[in-house]
């Protein structure tokens, strides 16, 4: 009897340990956490033209301090914008209504996060409010595309000063002009 008792004890301890490990994995290594353990919070929405690779669970920070996380990303078919729901910790309840939200990159090629910059208004954002001033993600590919377009354009312009402006897309031309002129010299 004594033997089977220690045996059952061992089995029980092992199973308990295993489930504790599973519990640790699901709650501590993912952004999920426990629903009843999540701190009080409120939701803000913001619309962006382009969110890059922002993901659900990406941090929301203000002056570099994490104050919340992205809880939902949706697409608004009426104005073709991304709708991002920010879940802000209730401790940070005094965000001015004219604050702006921008999408930044952590490190050179790291993940995206949303940075809020405080405005000067006296009223504060409440639950379900929308942040009106937003700035889209900086998309590396389009920047590289622009640089490449500038490069080919300046090469083409070098021999025949203003003969080949068609190489670059129209919107990058304005920005490209000064650089191209410099290169041509």
């Amino acid at each position, binding site marked *: 009897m004594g033997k089977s008792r220690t045996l059952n004890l061992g089995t029980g301890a092992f199973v308990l340990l295993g489930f504790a490990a599973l519990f640790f994995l699901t709650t501590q*290594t993912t952004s999920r956490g426990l629903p009843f353990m999540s701190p009080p919070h409120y939701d803000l929405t913001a619309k962006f033209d382009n969110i890059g690779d922002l993901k659900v669970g990406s941090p929301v920070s203000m002056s570099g301090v994490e104050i919340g996380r992205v809880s939902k990303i949706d697409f608004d078919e009426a104005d073709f914008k991304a709708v991002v729901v920010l879940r802000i910790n209730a401790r940070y309840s005094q965000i001015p209504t004219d604050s702006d939200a921008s999408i930044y990159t952590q*490190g050179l090629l790291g993940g995206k996060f949303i940075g809020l910059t405080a405005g000067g208004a006296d009223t504060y954002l409440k639950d379900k409010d929308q942040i009106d001033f937003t700035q889209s993600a900086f998309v590396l590919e389009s920047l590289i595309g622009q640089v490449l377009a500038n490069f080919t354009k300046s090469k083409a312009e070098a021999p025949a000063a203003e003969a080949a402006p068609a190489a670059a897309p129209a919107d990058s031309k304005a920005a490209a002009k000064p650089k191209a002129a410099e290169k041509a010299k």
Partner: protein
Amino acid sequence: MLRELWDSLNDALEALGAVIQFLLRLIVNTPRALMRFDLISQQIFNSGALSLVIIMLSGLFVGMVLGVQGYELLQRFGSEEALGEAAAIGLVKELGPVVTALLFAGRAGTALASELGLMRATDQISAMEMMAVDPIQRVVVPRFLGGVIAMPLLAAIFSVIGIYGAQLVGVQFMGVDAGSFWSQMRASVALSDINEGIVKSLIFGVACSLIAVYQGYYATPTAEGVGRATTYTVVTSAVVILFLDYLITAAFL
């Protein structure tokens, strides 16, 4: 030449069919074996709790190696904070289930196969049949179920200890910031990654335990036969685990 190839293909298919038939027999006998939960509990202890030490030690060292290697690689790009993410995803999705299953085949699978093989060799199984005790239900199914239950728990323990090992090297020795280590991990590990790990280890648990009890139950009743059954258990388990791992990974992508 072609004839031999055809024959060996036939043999392989026949063996697969026999194993699947054996699995069906185990499943049919499972409900009645569940009535004797003490037997299953004892097998969970044998396969699981007794494998804990080797699983935990291996997990720690695998995690520490991941920490060192990952740190070396990531610091070249100045993104050593991603170490937590890299180690956690690697462990939870791949290394945890696969290495645990390989160790399980070596530690518990061989024990199961040689135990059943010796029972066969010393006529204990025939004796049970004589006494109208179904050996499948009394001996084989509890061992099989014990392995199936133990494996996901062992894999989860392996992953947690491995993450601790990576954290030990990365944060304590190499000086990666602890906050960004954990926050990057949390931001990038999804619940689906963990589910994938659990599904993998469950399937590996079924495969490993099935191979072990099959080899043991049908071992040739000689000293040599028991030895061969043990060897085949490890070899077949290793190949099947890695093959299944590829299949499951491809299915989850």
